[in-house]
């Protein structure tokens, strides 16, 4: 790798031994991908994936402490993924005991470290940091050092920023040293599509199901998607951005997609169109039958597949303000239709603290509360990431949550029916 004089000096120890190790980490990381150089990070803020004070991650907190003790700090402030715990979310005595006394015993300590390292705001805990209400929204062309997979794919695809699918810790090390290796999705060539996906469904495809199908097919490749503008339009409005948030998270978790292009909609596809497609790109056609096939192939890992759901999580990734409002309308009218006043399954809608703050200022907040739905800033994935939840029948319309936990996936319409009418 060709380093600038400044970079070489840091590697040689001009800013101390710890900073030299941070630089060495980024150089070795780049070398693994034959990166020819390091390029400066240009975004205003960073975003970290590690938000949880999990006892097992003690080596991470020790490493963070080494950075703090050496005064090796980032010039960028940052947001971070959601907190793992919220007392508003239903949990039994045993779960609370395991969460607080065994698993997340480092939470307060780690949050203290995050503040020292440059957390942008005490409430900057969300996986959807790019929401206007949160304020960590990169510009087109910005170079990032992010790691949260759903945020990376959104930033690359919808905002036109440039970021690789980095791992946790690499995110903060890039930000500290101010440079990231130039490879993959940072390059023009790496942003070209090696798949053309044709949408031929008879109705608007479910965002999280479509994302899952594409993710599992293309894995880490870049898809160019044709025919989705028929359902989403050609303007990146709130509804389209919300759809793409959920769609992208599913491509990233069910596969390893870091960037997609939607013809006539996402910025690079609007600018360059089919020029983004590499010669010899493979083709994948998605119709109603293909989506049904994908959905029917999801394994059911509940101990009792016929169990009555005990909890419903919506909002992985965190819901947008637009989603919270539209779901309030949907839940209200479905309850009325089925003759119920409150949801029949304990239901949690999760969103960024700043989004919830705005939502709570609207008349929708009291209406949603009246339906019995709980709102929370929690990370549903972290909540479920323990052996106790394996036995718990949880339903969700998040394909990311389905992938990493024992939660069972249902479409939005199926979820709405389940929480307002009941049944298995």
């Amino acid at each position, binding site marked *: 790798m060709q380093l600038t004089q400044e970079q070489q000096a840091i590697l040689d120890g001009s800013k101390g031994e710890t900073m030299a*190790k941070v630089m*060495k*980490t980024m150089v*070795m*990381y780049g070398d*693994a*991908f034959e990166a020819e150089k390091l390029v400066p990070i240009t975004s205003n803020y960073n975003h970290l*994936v*590690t938000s949880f004070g*999990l*006892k*097992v*991650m*003690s*080596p*991470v907190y*020790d*490493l963070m402490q080494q950075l703090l003790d050496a005064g090796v700090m980032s010039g960028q402030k940052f947001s971070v993924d959601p907190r793992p715990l919220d007392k508003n979310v239903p949990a039994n005595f045993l779960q609370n005991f395991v969460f607080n006394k065994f*698993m997340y015993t480092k939470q307060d300590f780690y949050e203290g470290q995050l503040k020292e390292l440059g957390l942008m705001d005490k409430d900057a805990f969300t996986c959807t940091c790019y929401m206007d209400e949160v304020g960590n929204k990169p510009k087109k062309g910005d170079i990032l050092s992010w*790691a*949260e*997979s759903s945020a*990376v794919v959104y930033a690359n695809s919808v905002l036109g920023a440039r970021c*690789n*699918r*980095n*791992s*946790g*810790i*690499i995110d903060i090390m890039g930000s500290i040293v101010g440079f990231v290796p130039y490879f*993959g999705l940072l390059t023009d060539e790496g942003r070209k599509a090696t798949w053309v996906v044709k949408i031929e469904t008879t109705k608007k495809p479910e965002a999280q199901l479509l994302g899952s199908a594409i993710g599992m097919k293309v*894995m*880490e490749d870049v898809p160019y998607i044709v025919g989705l503008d028929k359902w989403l339009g050609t303007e990146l409005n709130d509804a389209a951005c919300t759809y793409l948030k959920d769609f992208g998270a599913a491509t990233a*978790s069910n596969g*390893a997609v870091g960037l997609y292009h939607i013809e006539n909609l996402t910025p690079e596809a609007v600018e360059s169109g089919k020029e983004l497609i590499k010669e010899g790109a493979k083709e994948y056609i998605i119709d109603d039958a293909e989506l049904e096939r994908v959905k029917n192939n999801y*394994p059911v*890992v509940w101990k009792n597949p016929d169990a009555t759901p005990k909890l419903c999580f919506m909002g992985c990734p965190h819901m947008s303000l637009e989603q919270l409002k539209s779901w309030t309308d949907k839940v209200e009218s479905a309850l009325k239709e089925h003759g119920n006043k409150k949801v029949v399954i304990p239901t949690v809608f999760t969103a960024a603290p700043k989004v919830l703050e705005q939502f709570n200022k609207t008349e929708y907040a009291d209406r949603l509360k009246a339906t019995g739905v709980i709102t929370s800033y929690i990370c549903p994935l972290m909540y479920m*990431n323990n*052996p106790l939840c394996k036995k718990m029948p949880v339903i969700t319309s998040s394909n990311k949550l389905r*992938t*990493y936990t024992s939660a069972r996936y249902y479409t939005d319409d199926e979820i709405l029916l389940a929480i307002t009418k009941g049944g298995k």
Partner: protein
Amino acid sequence: MREFKGRVVTPGTVTAPAVVTRQGFNTLASMQMALQFGDKKVKCGDQSNPDLYEKPMFGKALCLPQTIGSTTGGLVLYCACAMGRQPACMLFANHIDSLAAAGAVLADVWVDSVTMPVIDCLGDEFLEYVKDDMTVTVLEDGTVRVE
């Protein structure tokens, strides 16, 4: 006995019994529970991976195509190394992915007491040939001997 030549991501030499997955290795799903609950053998916890589920990984030559899953994967691998609970080596048939590369590099730079050689680009044939419990030797130049 067969030899395969790969690319050295992090150097080292080791001999260990193989444990093989032919599907992507989900680092978080495979390792987190074992590390969290003090399983010294680090048995794989990923129910979606029938090749590895419940097999011990500590001290084994982990043979895999690539890692998949959460972007916490790299730091989970780093934690395993820092806790002394890592595989003896990681041998990738494909080009290493960004998450595994991060874990390998972090362990190499920040953990003094641990050596975990990581070799990639060993090719599909490597993964077709190697089976559980075969003896795998990794040499400094990226040569992997399987017998």
